[in-house]
């Protein structure tokens, strides 16, 4: 397939025509390198993993993939642990995205009016989302450390003997991951909300002041509906990302303690690259997650369209 599609451009380069490349050829010259890369590292693995999900292939076993029908999917749907990981991921996504929405929107409301240094403050707030998640995971691991970490100190638990070890306790580990995720991604929600807020024309508030609307009424009837489309986009992005949470979790807890933070992506990783290297089953699980994310996104996009049209 690759070879056939890549063929046109070497053949079209006949000696006379070489000096005058047609627009069509030129555009193809620009498009194909990118397209080839995309096909090689995105499309091919996508279909290859779809194929693998119906086999018992293992990356370390030295034997060819064997077709097993829907066996991988049946196992996944009958595995209570995996259902638990789905539930955990869902709960994580719900709490984390919920907090990010509230905090991000709140920050945007505070930073909406320009004041001295508000530009610098906004930039500073945006720094967390520019960092690499693995790096964030690693340095928060240090900050969460019960004996020398700064986190407990900051929230007032200054006695190392009684202060919680956030990452080692199965009750608090999920919350630790949520705290870091909220710290890292609230700025993203804030950024989108801020651009939404700045797009609301002043005259709407003037009209509302003339119409004798209280600040509370103005917020619910003007600010919120006007920001809603961008807010929903932020929530959509964050929900998809939260469902795929992996790098941050790996950096912080690696899924532990026990399976307290075993998000579904971490589970896929464990299936694929730990123990028996169950590549086939991991592929099947990845496809289940893909279908769920597409379904959830669809719900959001429909809501978004409804908000836009009213």
């Amino acid at each position, binding site marked *: 397939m690759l070879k056939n599609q890549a063929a046109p451009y070497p053949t079209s380069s006949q000696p006379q025509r070489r000096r005058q490349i047609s627009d069509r050829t030129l555009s193809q010259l620009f498009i194909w390198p990118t397209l080839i890369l995309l096909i090689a590292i995105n499309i091919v693995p996508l279909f290859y993993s779809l194929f693998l999900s119906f086999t018992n292939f293992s990356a370390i076993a030295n034997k060819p993939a064997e077709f097993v029908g829907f066996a991988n999917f049946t196992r996944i749907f009958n595995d209570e642990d995996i259902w638990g990981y789905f539930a955990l991921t869902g709960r994580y996504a719900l709490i984390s995205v919920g907090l990010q929405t509230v905090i991000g929107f709140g920050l945007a409301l505070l930073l909406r009016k320009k004041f001295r240094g508000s530009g610098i403050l906004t930039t500073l707030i945006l720094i967390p989302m520019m960092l690499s998640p693995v790096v964030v995971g690693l340095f928060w691991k240090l900050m969460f450390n019960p004996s020398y970490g700064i986190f407990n100190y900051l929230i007032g638990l200054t006695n190392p003997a009684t202060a919680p070890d956030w990452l080692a306790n199965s009750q608090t580990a999920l919350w630790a991951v949520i705290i870091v995720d909220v710290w890292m991604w609230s700025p993203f929600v804030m950024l989108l909300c801020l651009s939404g807020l700045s797009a609301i024309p002043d*005259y*709407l508030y*003037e*009209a*509302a*002041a*003339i*119409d*004798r*609307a*209280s600040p509370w*009424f103005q917020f619910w*009837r*003007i600010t919120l*509906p*006007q920001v809603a489309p961008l807010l929903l986009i932020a929530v959509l992005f964050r929900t998809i990302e939260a469902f795929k949470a992996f790098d941050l979790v790996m950096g912080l807890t690696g899924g532990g303690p026990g399976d307290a933070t075993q998000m579904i992506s971490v589970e896929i990783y464990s299936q694929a690259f730990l123990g028996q290297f169950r590549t086939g089953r991991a592929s099947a699980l990845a496809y289940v997650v893909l279908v769920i994310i597409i379904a959830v996104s669809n719900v959001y996009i429909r809501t978004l369209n409804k908000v836009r049209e*009213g």
Partner: protein
Amino acid sequence: MATIELQQVEKKFGEVYAVKPMDLTIRDGEFLVLLGPSGCGKTTTLRMISGLEAVTAGRILLNGRDVTWAHPSDRDIAFVFQFFALYPHLSARQNIAFPLQAQGESRQTIDRRIKEVSQLLRIEHLLHLRPGALSGGDQQRVALARALVRRPAAFLMDEPLGALDAEFRESMRAEIKRLHLDQHATSVYVTHDQIEAMAMGDRIVVMSSAVVQQVGTPAEVYHNPRSLFVARFIGSPGMNLIPGDYADGMVNLPGGNCYPVPPIWQRSLHNQMARAGRIILGFRPEAAQISSDGPLHAEVYAADLHGSYNMLHLSLDGKDILHARASRQEHFPIGTKLRFDLHPEWVRFFNADTELAYDCEVAS
């Protein structure tokens, strides 16, 4: 309803005056028009009355109550914006309901009032639409309905027809005037269009460069402009203004013209100015009467047929152009030399230095 009183109200942006200290009383039920070129401070004045703009000095009284520092929502005043300022995410009905809901009115009251105003403004069939789906005229009707629905003490309108097409503008002008006559609410209306101002206002406040030039009925500002600015600004075309020299009851004008001051003006001018000096003669195009024994002579520079009359562009000395109305039956080829007289009661004189009008004791 309401009287609005401005006492020495001024607005400065930095060191620049947007409105120099002004006094103005808007009577109960009056339709007052603030008229002036853009940047003259008329919109700022309106916004100060509404409370959307804070004054830098002076007091604003609403029905005798000092509202200078009251929030717009505490003034019981409706404001119609130039670009409508409808809530884009709400339907026409929700837009109109907004001020009532903000006051926590009951459902029945809201439904009843919306029905009343939408009948009045003939927008019942549009209530389910959002502003984006409405034409400019209909958007302005919805904006008017939103202002009317809460029965405010006074209406402030900031060039409400400015954003409309010419054809809509005339019909909406009539509609707003009818509404005013029905409701009899105190209204302040800002426009830069002097025809609109003449057509709608009970009184007109002419402003320029942050200063009130004249306050008066449309007839007053048209016939008795207090200054050269008002004389030029009101009317289309404006008043003809010819600089000349006054001496012994005669005004010497360009092109060797000599105009004898009408008897009713003799004494007034004599009392108000020196025996001789510079003066500006003013008259409206319709004050010119073409007659073979008129004291003034001029050459036709151009002639436009305006349907019911001819507008002649005349030149006294080959330079300054005057406008004069002539009957549409007569034909005036370019270059025709003609003589004309001025209707003595419609002639005005202005001080060439102060640019203010001289009073006519007999006329006033």
